[in-house]
């Protein structure tokens, strides 16, 4: 028998005689004991405490808590003697804008040096500017330059088009006009929408709003083309705010007139510009054929968007009879005066 074999045999005999017990060398050190048991107590207690903190017996805490925000009132009280509507006719947009805005108080009155200004054109569709379905980029460019001259520190242009944003901004000429005039373009992304609360709104008391470009903004100017529209008869400056909303806005058509009145409540702009350089007379609001479009040679500035829309409907589109329902709804809710003949107005031929 080798030594190894002998050792094993003896060892096994030894082991068989004595059941296994914990030998002195098999005890953990005090430090080890405290460390391990402490770690267990910490892990068990920590999990219990965490579970208690995260406990949600009704399941309500786990639902997303959507923060809501409200829009500021962007209006500026007009100076004494200012008109409500300024109507400029001609073909030089810079001069026409100056005149029209001059009539309602002058750009320097509305825009203070250092202001961050947001301009909202209508860029709803992927259409060439000539087709009149979107804001005229030359008019937008002239407006941006005017606001810049008034000392605005930053000018932003934003819209949430119906068709794909990049294409719409590019093919309407709005992107180029914005960049050439030195303004910043904001295109919508899912992350740029937040929940807007509109107190008193009938249908959009809470609705996702294209809020990112509105952060830190002091003044808001709407600049909308004037277009035929089957359901609401005409799309002008109040309907233009539709382009700031997200979510299921295809449901708006179930009650479009109350929606547009809600839009007038939602947005109290510094002033609006009704761009009647081109007028989409029929087949709106998309158009698509040059024969749908009439040269309008008119720009209107207004501190009352309802009056501007009423003027546009009767005078530019030259529609007879009742105004679109939404203008009356807005009037009834104290949001403006659709009786444009009774408001102060200045009309002039320039350039």
């Amino acid at each position, binding site marked *: 028998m080798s030594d190894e074999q002998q050792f094993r045999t003896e060892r096994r005999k030894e082991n068989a005689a004595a059941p296994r017990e914990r030998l002195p*060398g098999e005890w953990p050190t005090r430090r080890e004991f405290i460390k391990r048991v402490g770690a267990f107590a910490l892990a068990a207690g920590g999990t219990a405490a965490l579970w208690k903190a995260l406990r949600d*017996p009704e*399941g309500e805490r786990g639902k997303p808590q959507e923060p809501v925000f409200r829009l500021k009132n962007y209006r500026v009280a007009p100076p004494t003697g200012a008109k409500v509507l300024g109507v400029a006719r001609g073909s030089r947009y810079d001069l026409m804008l100056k005149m029209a805005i001059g009539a309602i108080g002058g750009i320097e009155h509305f825009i203070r040096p250092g202001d961050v200004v947001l301009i909202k054109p209508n860029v709803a569709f992927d259409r060439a500017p000539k087709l009149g379905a979107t804001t005229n980029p030359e008019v937008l460019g002239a407006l941006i330059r005017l606001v810049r001259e008034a000392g605005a520190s930053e000018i932003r242009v934003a819209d949430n088009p119906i068709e794909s944003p990049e294409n719409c901004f590019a093919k309407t000429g709005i992107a180029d006009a914005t960049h050439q005039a030195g303004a910043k373009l904001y295109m919508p992304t899912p992350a740029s929408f937040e929940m807007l609360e509109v107190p008193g709104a009938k249908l959009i008391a809470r609705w996702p709003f294209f809020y990112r470009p509105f952060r830190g903004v002091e003044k808001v100017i709407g600049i909308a083309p004037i277009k035929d529209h089957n359901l609401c008869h005409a799309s002008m400056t109040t309907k233009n705010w539709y382009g700031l909303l997200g979510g299921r806005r295809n449901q708006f058509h179930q009650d479009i007139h109350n929606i547009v009145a809600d839009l007038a409540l939602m947005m109290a702009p510094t002033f609006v510009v009704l761009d009647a350089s081109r007028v989409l007379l029929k087949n709106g609001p998309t158009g698509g054929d040059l024969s749908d479009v009439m040269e309008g040679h008119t720009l209107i500035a207004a501190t009352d968007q309802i009056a501007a829309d009423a003027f546009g409907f009767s005078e530019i589109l030259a529609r007879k009879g009742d105004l679109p329902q939404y203008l009356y709804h807005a009037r009834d809710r104290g949001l403006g005066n659709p009786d444009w003949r009774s408001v102060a107005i200045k009309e002039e031929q320039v350039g």
Partner: protein
Amino acid sequence: MSCGCGKDGGCEKPVFFAKEPPGTNGVKAPWWMKAFRITRVRVFSQAFFFGLFFFFIYVTWFSRLKGYPVSLFLEVDPLVGIATAIATHTVYRHLVWSLWLIIPTLLLGRWFCNWMCPYGTLHQFIGWLFNTRRNIDKIAINRYRSIFQLKYIILVVFILLAAFGSLQIGLLDPICIMYRTFTTGIAPANDLAVSSIGGAPWQLFKPGTEEYRVFYATWFVGLVFLGLVGMNLVIPRFFCRVLCPLGALLGFLSRFALWRIDRDVTRCTDCNLCLAHCEGASDPQAALRKSECFVCFNCIDDCPEDALSFRFLPVKKPVLTRQPLSKLPETEVAWPALPRRQLLLTGVLGVLAYPLVRLSAAVNPRAFDKKAIRPPGSVAEPEFLERCIKCDQCINVCPTNVLQPATLMQAGLEGLWTPVMDMRIGFCQLNCTLCSEVCPTGAIQKISTEKKLGVGRYAAAGPISVGTAFFNHGRCLPWAMETPCVVCEEVCPVSPKAIGTYDEQVKRWDGTMVILNKPYMRPELCIGCGICEHECPVADDKAVYVTAVGETRSKDRSLLLRSRQT
């Protein structure tokens, strides 16, 4: 006394683990010591928990429900608790009970796998029943293999997906697999047996419905189940060792366990007999892999040298007073064996898995499947996918069989086997909220009938709608076939009814006069319960059918401008 190994007096084992008590050479052990040795207690425990699980499945039914905690196994499942906590940052209702598993695991290791888990029990039982291996082959097959790392990879991927908001643990969580398979496979198979054979023994577990339940997913769920159980013949406890994400999580927690199997290297002769019945393949013959050990105690039972014991805080490197007998001096591998580089790759895999599941149009608000109708009380879809573990308990309890595990077409991989309603098979019973009662994670939140119906303090919010019914005039008897009908209007359970009729007298083709009540929908009243579709006599392609649009759980899938959110 001899244990059969032929060595005289070398086989005594300590009390409690011993087949015979020590120091009683030649004297038989009393019966109780054999009966209550710990491996046997373990088998009792497994049988008890398997029976309990079976009982819970059985009583998950309206007339048997009483107050039993039928989803208990899911609620104590730490993978469910932890993964939903990561996805939702909350711990829903009874999920705090996962502490009852987390704390013992931190003390004792993965005992759950071999003492409580019904799926583990099933695997062990099947492996035992069909075992054809000789001892030497058992020892070989029970050695640790690197493929066992796979479960940690699966766990990390699932946890990352949960962090992104896509809960996929239910695909492989053993408790979810068990509930799902019993719900969509075994229970309806029993229904079928009762309806086609009748009598005992099937009648013992008589189904709740008169008709046997049917599921689109049975074949798929069943094949996965059978395949995984069958793998036991290739590798014992294949699922538990290789795939189980819950086992991986418990294995991770076991790293900190205060107790473990300890091998005395001055006694161990490296005979490897401890591997013969090792359930976890945790290398008890060498350095014990704490994260793989199921604490089944078979190794202690099998050790002829009394070298193994289950010890509180064993020392990794004891100060030996005698020369070791074993040639393998190591005693412990604490961490799960997942090399750092592999862990990194796993992380990348988890990040890539998210777009893989999330970019399915089926779960997007722009293209959700019209037939993916969620049960009432369900949270909005993104939150639903953070919570649903595909356990299908809601489907198990549903009295009308309307709830179905979603197919790949309806819900993509992300929503596979989540509950949707098929109104041809059943309908959502007006005064029933059972699915919301049994949901362990709050994907379907616990609602009262008041809330479901929009009465009492929920009157302002209105009833919960799960969808909207639409008419197909071309197939509707009064609209298209000069034939009176309006079963749909008759069964519409809301008041006032969501289905109205235009009543017209017409002269039929044969000259007889007939009054036709042509039905139409009042969408603001429809709750999408689908009883109209279920009862419509145009059986194969119903003339009225519910689709998911108009559900009130979120604005994303609403139909009307003046839509309600509940």
